[in-house]
């Protein structure tokens, strides 16, 4: 049995990677993982529906954190998917018997330790399996405050859940982590990359443009049925605050990354200023969520114009952070 200790994080995928690398001797915070993997993003894809509501995402695609960290830090990471449930189960047991801690992808819905209130069909949830006690697997799910246990049946159902982003039993673990990683060049490169991406997305559905596109979409709700409009607005907030801590939470986390980065660059002023600005943008997302929650509860007419304007303002302010970050020079 290994000496793994569970840590409570803000987000599943960045949390797994932080816990996993720290366990293997590379002490790296969750915000640093998040920043170095360029995980911040925004996309509004009205023609892709989840639960009847358009897709609103506040981060990059699932699995991109693992993949980008692997690439950017030159970590050799094994990623295995399986053609059958049996093979996937056996391989996990084998890795655990070697004393390894293993990252896994699965559907939130089928994990028995997830309470009903939080249990939705989402195939790209990440967690660590770090051991087995009798017939239960020991699971470190980063978004839970304590380590949990899970039966084989539930774990397999989750790991082999079908549909969009089907995990196919995905397991991942590092096999080689380079010593003495020089974080500075990786940080500056990825900050530039992210800022450019967010400002100059080639498609109008992502980045800052995507935020404005959604702000316009909110105005169009005026013509829609009131119940649908409320569900639409509620969905924005759920995607923002609940599913993987979303909009505000991710901005706060990125602000934390910028602060850590600033310290590494001898308290670089551009980075520390950008960190403060990003925290404020996060607060604006929270305020936006609050106004929406009030409109949902209220019997009065919804002020779509006001809600839409708030999001336009967020887009402008978030764009300012990226412009600030482009001033960053080593």
């Amino acid at each position: 049995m290994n000496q793994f200790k569970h840590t409570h994080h803000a987000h599943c995928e960045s949390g797994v990677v932080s816990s996993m690398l720290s366990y293997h001797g590379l002490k790296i915070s969750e915000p640093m993982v998040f920043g170095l993997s360029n995980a911040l993003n925004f996309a509004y894809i009205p023609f892709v529906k989840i639960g009847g509501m358009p897709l609103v995402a506040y981060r990059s695609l699932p699995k991109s954190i693992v993949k980008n960290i692997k690439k950017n830090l030159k970590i050799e990471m094994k990623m295995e998917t399986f053609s059958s449930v049996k093979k996937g189960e056996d391989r996990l047991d084998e890795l655990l018997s070697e004393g390894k801690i293993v990252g896994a992808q699965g559907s939130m819905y089928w994990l028995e330790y997830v309470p009903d209130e939080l249990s939705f069909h989402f195939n790209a949830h990440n967690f660590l399996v770090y051991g087995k006690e009798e017939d239960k697997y020991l699971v470190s799910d980063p978004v839970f405050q304590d380590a949990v246990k899970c039966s084989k049946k539930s774990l397999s159902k989750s790991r082999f859940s079908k549909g969009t982003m089907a995990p196919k039993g995905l397991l991942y673990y590092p096999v080689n982590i380079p010593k003495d990683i020089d974080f500075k060049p990786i940080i500056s490169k990825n900050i530039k990359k992210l800022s450019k991406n967010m400002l100059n997305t080639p498609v109008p559905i992502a980045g800052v443009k995507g935020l404005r596109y959604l702000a316009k979409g909110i105005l169009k709700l005026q013509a829609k049925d009131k119940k649908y409009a409320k569900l639409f607005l509620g969905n924005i907030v759920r995607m923002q605050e609940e599913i993987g801590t979303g909009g505000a939470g991710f901005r706060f986390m990125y602000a934390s990354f910028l602060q850590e980065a600033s310290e590494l660059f001898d308290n670089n002023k551009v980075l520390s200023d950008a960190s403060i600005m990003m925290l404020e943008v996060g607060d604006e997302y929270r305020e936006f969520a609050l106004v929406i929650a009030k409109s949902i509860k209220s019997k009065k007419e919804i002020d779509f114009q006001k809600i839409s304007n708030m999001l336009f303002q967020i887009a402008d302010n978030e764009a300012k952070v990226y412009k600030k970050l482009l001033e960053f020079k080593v």
Partner: protein
Amino acid sequence: MKLENVPQDDSPTYAKMKKTIYAKDSKGNIQGKSSNGWEVEETVTRQALDDIQEHIKEAFWEVKNGNKSTLYFYMYKQKMDLTLLAQVTGFFKWTIKKDFDPKVFAKIKQNRLEEYCDVLGVEIDAIKELPNEPV
């Protein structure tokens, strides 16, 4: 976000869980802090859960009244909809819609029924039965 502003609204929708939020202390240092709930989030989670409950109840009575097959009920019961059920089974939507017809569903092929049971996590001898209560 300031540390002292990290909401502690003890939301029932958190189901006694806590979430980590990054916030700054009085010196501006950002760190993670646990939150046991936020009213705003509770509102939208509750809204989504209520919407699901409504679908489940409607579906229950549709089946009870003989308009729809039990498949229709279990789809909503397992927090799915037609789009999701089509994605996880790989079946075309229009073929699933046919299975919502009680007469068609009564004569469903065994392998197709097994696929539904698998993705919905319902036992094969239970999927053709309606429970006494919707929830």
